[in-house]
């Protein structure tokens, strides 16, 4: 029973980690621009993140090595450093987008308060919560809160979409015509939003922090978290696309603001829908801000071999000075960038698309270690994990080459 509860909590945490401002922005835009046509990209992204998250969790359980430890050890110092620099740049952009996103959500209800004050409140509250709460508390509070986004699943059903059209959206097709580049930009964006690297940095480091142990049955917990948590996250993504496809696509609304995503719940369920969506977004984006900042701190400390870990609690930060300073610095940098007036939604798009470029360098070492029998023993990758791992590595390599040209050629999807 205890294990079932642990799995349930883990699934909720994985779900909370999956849905962030990237999902909210790209899925809503994809649905508004192309109706159901891009639904097929959701399972592509979900299977990819579930495959690699399961591998990361298994590697962490067996070898006690988190992702960036593996990155440096397998790629060597130079390529590892390039991966670190790219990842940190993406983490800063991600945390900037998430902190800005929280302020945007607060603006739904506190429009009279200057945006910069809301930014300050968002950054201070998140840092305070991270400082005070233990690792498990952070993971679960934001995970549970993010479940309020279930309002979008209810809205997707309530809006009575043509389920035949929805089903046909899951069949990949090759877009032609003048919207081709924009179509592929959003396809890359939805896949990339699911596979952003900070999720696996956080997930594997969390497994080491929580002391996952094969003898305690934690490999089953890992598998359940990766499969069901990210699959449920995929259901949320599909719901966002359906709501946008039904409400915004027919009238040609282009959702350039986070408020448009919230509008989907408000149109369907009135003020209650808006409140649930706003709170759900707040927790989901807040959780992602914490994960992004921790991912940056984990990567930095693990690359240099410093002591790290939130389970040693922030108030005992003397034991982890580098790690604690790193996550705080990330929040401060994010806050400063937000203060310049940069649009959080635009930053999200850049963060997600640029993250794709770092993905192959992050995922290759994980695949190599997970296939290494000397390290993994009988828990080495099976045929399915190897096949999916190699397939996604190839896919991500292609996507990493086309992502930035697509971003600029389509003027970040606005044509």
């Amino acid at each position: 029973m205890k294990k079932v509860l642990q799995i349930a909590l883990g699934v909720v945490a994985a779900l909370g980690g999956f849905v962030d401002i990237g999902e909210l922005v790209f899925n809503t835009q994809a649905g508004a621009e192309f109706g159901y046509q891009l639904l097929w990209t959701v399972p592509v992204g979900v299977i990819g993140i579930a495959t690699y998250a399961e591998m990361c969790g298994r590697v962490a359980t067996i070898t006690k090595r988190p992702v960036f430890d593996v990155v440096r050890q397998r790629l060597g110092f130079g390529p590892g450093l390039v991966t670190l620099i790219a990842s940190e740049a993406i983490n800063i952009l991600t945390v900037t987008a998430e902190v800005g996103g929280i302020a945007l959500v607060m603006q739904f209800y506190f429009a009279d308060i200057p945006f910069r004050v809301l930014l300050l409140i968002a950054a201070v509250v998140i840092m305070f919560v991270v400082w005070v709460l233990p690792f498990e508390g952070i993971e679960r509070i934001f995970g549970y809160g993010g479940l309020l986004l279930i309002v979008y699943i209810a809205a997707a059903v309530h809006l009575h979409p043509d389920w035949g059209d929805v089903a046909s959206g899951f069949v990949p097709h090759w877009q032609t015509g003048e919207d081709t580049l924009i179509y592929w930009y959003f396809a890359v964006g939805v896949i990339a939003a699911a596979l952003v690297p900070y999720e696996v940095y956080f997930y594997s480091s969390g497994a080491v922090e929580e002391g996952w142990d094969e003898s305690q049955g934690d490999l089953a917990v890992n598998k359940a978290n990766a499969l069901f948590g990210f699959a449920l996250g995929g259901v949320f993504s599909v719901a966002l696309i359906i709501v946008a496809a039904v409400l915004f696509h027919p009238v040609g609304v282009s959702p350039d603001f986070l408020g448009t995503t919230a509008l989907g719940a408000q149109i369907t369920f009135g003020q209650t829908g808006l409140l649930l969506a706003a709170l759900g977004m707040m927790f989901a984006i807040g959780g992602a801000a914490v994960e992004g900042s921790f991912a940056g701190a984990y990567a930095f400390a693990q690359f240099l071999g410093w002591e790290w870990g939130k389970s040693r609690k922030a108030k005992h930060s003397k034991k982890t000075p580098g790690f604690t300073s790193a996550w705080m610095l990330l929040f401060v940098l994010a806050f400063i960038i937000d203060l310049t007036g940069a649009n959080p939604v635009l930053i999200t798009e850049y963060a997600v698309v640029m993250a794709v470029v770092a993905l192959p360098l992050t995922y290759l070492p994980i695949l190599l270690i997970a296939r290494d029998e000397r390290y993994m023993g009988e828990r080495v990758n099976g045929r399915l994990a190897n096949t999916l791992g190699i397939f996604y590595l190839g896919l991500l390599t292609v996507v990493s080459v086309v992502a930035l040209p697509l971003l600029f050629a389509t003027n970040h999807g606005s044509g």
Partner: protein
Amino acid sequence: MSAVGTQVDLGLRLLDDQLFDSEEHRCGRVDDVQLKGAPGLPTEVSALLVGPGAWTGRLRKPFAYLVEGLAPDYMHYVPWNDVVRVGTSVRLSRPAQELGLETSDGRSVQWVGDAPRGTIRLSELLRSRLVTTTRTDLGRIWDVRVERQTELPDERINEAWRVTGLVTGRMGWQERIGMSPEGDAAEGETFTPWESVQDISSGVVTVADVGGR
């Protein structure tokens, strides 16, 4: 099961590993490895080198100049007999402070620059090209293979790790990152025996011309 085996490729299995001291405290990474010996003569692992002074030398030129100005001009030195175990990480026999790690009091340090006389740094070999005495280029050196002395190895270090050869060529890169299994310690496309090494200087390792090369 041992994570290293009897034939150990130092780049793949030791370099860049996480260090834990005797109190399970993370205290750096294996930023370089010091070998004691000379080209072609018996050579073995003698110490681990830790800290920015050790890794700045592994950066490529423009980055190296940039970082060298900022990083300390020394590296910490952990004698091989203070290494207890090498598995998926490296375990040390004493607390980090006692070993001089995480301190700046000058204990157990080595200065940046040329390796001390009679020693070779692993990074020096890993950034070199392998050529024969008749100047035939055999490719980049991707890894350095050592041999453990015990028949049934575990992860404890209670023995010398002796250098047996260099891993090079196209397949060598795949071996270095663990994409293909490490080969046997036999001369072949990717392996050059250490006994044939004649000279190491400024990015070039010269080996004796063997028939067929």
